[in-house]
């Protein structure tokens, strides 16, 4: 019986990548908290996971001019605009407190995925060594 690393780790690596991407988006929101006209954005994590579970296939881009069907976020995640709680006069929709909370939550989720991955690795190690 061969050990397949792809199957052994499940969708944890994909989750890690997506959390990393989401941290970029949330960091952009926080960075642009004072930029006039900036619209806060976020990834709908649930829909991405649901799409991954349903086994949806993304359109392949074969030439540099091709536009990805899933929008401008890589990895199939669609970037959506946040509904502002209290929009400001300069058109900025960033709510620093909301973004900070989301960023912290995202970091915790990233770390929990890391912990699960570490568990997988130690399990694999145990299987390889047989001790």
């Amino acid at each position, binding site marked *: 019986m061969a050990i397949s690393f792809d199957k052994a780790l499940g969708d944890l690596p994909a989750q890690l990548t997506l959390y990393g991407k989401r941290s*970029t988006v949330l*960091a952009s929101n926080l*960075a*642009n908290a004072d930029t006039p006209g900036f619209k806060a954005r976020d990834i709908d994590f649930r829909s991405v996971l649901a799409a991954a579970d349903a086994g949806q296939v993304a359109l392949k881009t074969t030439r540099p001019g091709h536009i990805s069907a899933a929008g401008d976020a890589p990895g199939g995640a669609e970037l959506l605009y946040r509904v502002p709680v209290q929009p400001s006069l300069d058109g900025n929709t960033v709510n620093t407190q909301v973004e900070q909370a989301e960023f912290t939550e995202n*970091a915790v989720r990233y770390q929990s995925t890391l912990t699960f991955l570490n568990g997988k690795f130690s399990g694999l190690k145990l299987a390889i060594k047989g001790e």
Partner: protein
Amino acid sequence: MSLLDVFDIAGSAMSSESVRLNVTASNLANAQSVGPDEASTYRARQPVFSAVMQSLRGGVDSPGVGVRVDAIVESQAPLEQRYQPEHPMANAEGYVYVPNVNMIDEMSNMISASRSYQSNVEVLNTSKQLLLATLRLGQ
């Protein structure tokens, strides 16, 4: 590596906020720099921020958006004239021009800039911890 993008984004925000702090400091420092005419008197300055797509900057496929300071604009509010004929800067009619710096505006701007700076430092620290934890994966 998307977590490395966070460093660029938070870094761009920190440098923009520090420009804002610098401008505020120069406004506060020159609040009493009176002049003999409108043209040579100090005017309050404000930085103009704008968003920059990371993918346009580095050519990488990143959803991140950084910040940059587009311009520093001078306030066009009218300068206050003060009648001080004994002042060395006074013009022929005995008036000096006072900069249009609003102390309250500047102080609130300073606090807002330092808070934004702090939140970006927080983002940077968290991302650093996540990256270091990722490096230790499987050990």
